[in-house]
């Protein structure tokens, strides 16, 4: 954690980003603009999902084009558990659903982590373009499964009538729900920072830089990557559960390849492998979506242009521009 404690330009920028994200919803509430609270919540949740992907993509160099699968699985866990709690029908093995967020989170983390383990175990036998394609293929399988499964809404999706509950607070209050998401995001960022600085993180990052080197010192890159991929999937799954609660709706669109692409775009915009890259990217993305979306329906055209500029001229993303090159110690 030492490099996090030291005052560097990057840490300062991270602090400002975190403070801004916290300040906006309070200001919005004060000025009676609850819409902006929702916008900030959306940023926090997308940043959380991208922080999950950042573990695989940023640290491990694993370009997963299938993280929507985990995001959607987290979403469906929230939706399905809530639906069963509402109807009273037992779920599996006589277990009932639940409206408790923290139970939903635990289930979402475990389930998406396990699915990540399975998808990773197969996908990580390939690399490069094949890895991208095989993760995409798995996500599409989950997507079409959700569409063709009528029990939980199929193509139409599944509504969560009342937002799930968290002990001691009213989650229906937008600001409260934002704070829950914000704290979860900060915890995930702390986890990312810890992992990045750890032995496991060292091996994961080394495997990105030079797989042969890692094997030559006696560490099996496959195991390291698989573990990293599963943790990455679990964090993105957690974000999916929150996203479903934000919208009080989950549909197969959360599982679509657009979502996978969006998460990659967030990371590239913000800065690949940077601690606050996902948050910077998510903030930029949501602000573009909102600001440009108000001006033109074709806002994604302009997002494409911006992405082009970032890839050509600012490969470190927003954090690369503001804080300079990443330091690896």
């Amino acid at each position, binding site marked *: *954690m*030492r*490099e996090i404690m030291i005052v560097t330009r990057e840490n300062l920028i991270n602090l400002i980003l975190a403070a801004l994200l916290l300040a906006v919803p309070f200001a919005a509430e004060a000025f009676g603009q609850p819409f902006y609270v929702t916008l900030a919540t959306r940023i926090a949740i997308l940043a959380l999902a991208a922080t999950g992907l950042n573990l695989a993509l940023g640290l491990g160099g694993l370009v997963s084009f299938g993280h929507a699968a985990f995001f959607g699985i987290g979403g469906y866990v929230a939706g399905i558990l809530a639906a069963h709690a509402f109807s009273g029908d037992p779920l599996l093995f006589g277990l009932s659903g639940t409206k408790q967020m923290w139970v939903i989170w635990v289930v979402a983390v475990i389930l998406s982590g396990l699915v990540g383990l399975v998808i990773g175990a197969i996908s990580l036998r390939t690399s490069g373009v094949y890895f991208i394609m095989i993760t995409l293929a798995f996500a599409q399988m989950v997507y079409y499964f959700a569409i063709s499964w009528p029990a939980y809404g199929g193509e139409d999706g599944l509504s969560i009538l009342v937002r799930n509950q968290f002990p001691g607070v009213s989650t229906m209050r937008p600001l409260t729900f934002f704070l829950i998401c914000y704290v979860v995001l900060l915890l995930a960022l702390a986890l990312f920072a*810890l*992992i990045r*600085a*750890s*032995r*496991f*993180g*060292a*091996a994961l*990052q*080394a495997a990105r*830089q*030079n797989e*042969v*080197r*890692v*094997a*030559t*010192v*006696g*560490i*099996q*890159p496959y195991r*390291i990557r698989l*573990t990293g991929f599963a943790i990455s999937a679990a964090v993105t799954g957690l974000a999916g559960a929150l996203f479903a609660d934000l919208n009080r709706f989950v549909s197969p669109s959360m599982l679509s390849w657009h979502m996978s692409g969006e998460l990659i775009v967030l990371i590239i915009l913000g800065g690949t492998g940077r601690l606050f890259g996902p948050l910077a990217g998510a903030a930029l993305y949501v602000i573009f979506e909102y600001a440009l979306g108000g001006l033109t329906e074709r806002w994604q055209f302009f997002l494409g242009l911006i992405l082009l500029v970032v890839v050509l001229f600012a490969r470190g993303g927003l954090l690369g521009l503001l804080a300079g090159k*990443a330091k*690896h*110690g």
Partner: protein
Amino acid sequence: MVEPVLQISNLVKNFGALRATDGVTLDLRPGEIHALIGPNGAGKSTLIHQICGTLRQDSGAIRFAGQDIGSLGVAQRAQLGLGRTFQVSSIAPDFSGLRNVMLAVQAKQGSSFRFFKPVMRDRSLIDTAMAMLERVGLTARARIPAAELSHGERRQLEIAMALALGSKAFLLDEPMAGMGPEGSKSLTRFLDTLRHEAPILLVEHDMDAVFALADRISVLVYGRIIATGTVEEIRRDPIVRTAYLGDHA
């Protein structure tokens, strides 16, 4: 006789109709430098790949440190203490030299599945790694990204990593390649001391280095060992002279 550290017997590897390794038998004894020489295309690289596990032999056996390693993967062989350097240095370029060596130290210590303790506050990792860097004379450059190290420094870094593994044998693939005359000389001096740590299988084109260092030399031509012997025996061998050494002897 002492048991060899590395024992290769009747190794065969075919690529289609090409027999790249043709019944190679070779051993590496404690404390020696065994040089493997041969013209380009003789199959030296193929042989090395089989020893370190990136290629699987078609038949034959490889024993290392008292066990059959012929079916183990690269990482498992490294764990047993097979330290290697590459013709083109293989390093993690974004990491500093120190962090490169720390990676080897953490592998040697056992587990890379530790998620919370920061490596940069782990004295046992840092101190051991620094000691290895000091042995290869890279202390002053320890904290520079490995990508910015010179060719020779990267070679030193690779050796530091092999040392950190506690290697029982070193497999050095053309360590002199791309080194200037000064660099070659100092590396030769260093390798001369390294043999006391663990025996070295040295694949090398630089004949000055080979003749200066080797206790024994094996000559590989078209996938076959055509001669094995001391420096003097190899220098005098008429077959070797026509096949490879030419005017160098």
